[in-house]
C-alpha cells in the first residue's frame, strides 16, 4: 500500500522505518529516492491531489513486477500542501542484488512521473495553480476526443 501523508513526509522517520523493517530480510541493496519541493518561480508550496484507487492499482502492478525479481517496493506520497524544502515523494527498493535495485529505481520513478494518478499545483500567494506545462498525459489519453 502507498503511504499517503497529509502534507510533507517525515523523511527521516520514514527511511529509518523502511531500513529497520527490512535490514534483517537478507536484501543486499536498498535504494531510495526522495523528492523535495524546490524554491523556484516564487512558489511557497506545491500541492497535490491523489486518486487513491488507481494509485493503489498502479503501485500494485509495480510491486508485483519487483516481487518477480525477488525485490520489495515501498512508497509514500503527500496529499495537500507541501512547503518548499519539504518532501512530497519517497520510495525504496530492497533487492538481493544491486543491479535490480538500481535499474528498477530508475524505471519506477520515471513511470511514476508519467502514469501515477497524482496532480500537482503551484501554490503562489495562497492560490493553487495547476502545473499544466509540467504534467504528462497518461497512456491512452485522448480516447474521448476521438470519433
Amino acid at each position: 500500500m502507498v503511504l499517503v501523508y497529509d502534507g510533507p513526509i517525515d523523511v527521516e522517520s520514514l527511511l529509518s522505518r523502511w531500513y529497520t523493517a527490512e535490514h534483517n530480510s537478507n536484501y543486499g541493496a536498498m535504494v531510495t529516492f526522495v523528492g523535495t519541493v524546490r524554491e523556484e518561480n516564487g512558489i511557497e508550496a506545491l500541492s497535490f491531489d491523489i486518486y487513491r484507487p488507481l494509485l493503489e492499482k498502479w503501485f500494485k502492478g509495480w510491486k508485483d513486477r519487483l516481487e518477480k525479481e525477488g525485490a520489495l517496493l515501498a512508497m509514500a506520497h503527500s496529499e495537500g500542501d507541501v512547503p518548499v524544502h519539504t518532501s512530497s515523494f519517497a520510495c525504496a527498493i530492497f533487492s538481493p542484488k544491486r543491479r535490480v535495485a538500481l535499474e528498477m529505481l530508475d524505471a519506477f520513478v520515471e513511470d511514476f512521473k508519467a502514469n501515477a494518478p497524482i496532480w500537482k499545483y503551484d501554490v503562489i500567494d495562497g492560490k493553487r495553480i495547476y502545473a499544466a506545462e509540467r504534467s504528462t498525459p497518461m497512456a491512452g489519453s485522448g480516447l474521448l476526443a476521438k470519433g
Partner: protein
Amino acid sequence: MVKVEFLGPIGKSPIEVEASTLAELAEILKKDPEVAVWLEQSAVAVNDRMVESLEVKLDSGDRVSLLPPVCGG
C-alpha cells in the same frame, strides 16, 4: 445512469448521464465546453480500470473517471 467524475484540476462535480458505450459518452461530453477542452489530454477509467477503446460497454451504475495530465513527486 452512468456516473462521470472529473479528477484533479478539471474541478467539476460528478455528473450522471445516460450512455451505453464510451462512444456515446464521448458525444455527450464534447457538448460541454467546460469538459471538452480536457478530452484531448485525458485518460479514461471505467470502475477504476484504465480503458483504451470507445467500444467499451457501459452499464447503469458504472463509474467513468476522466484523468487529466499527471505530475507526481
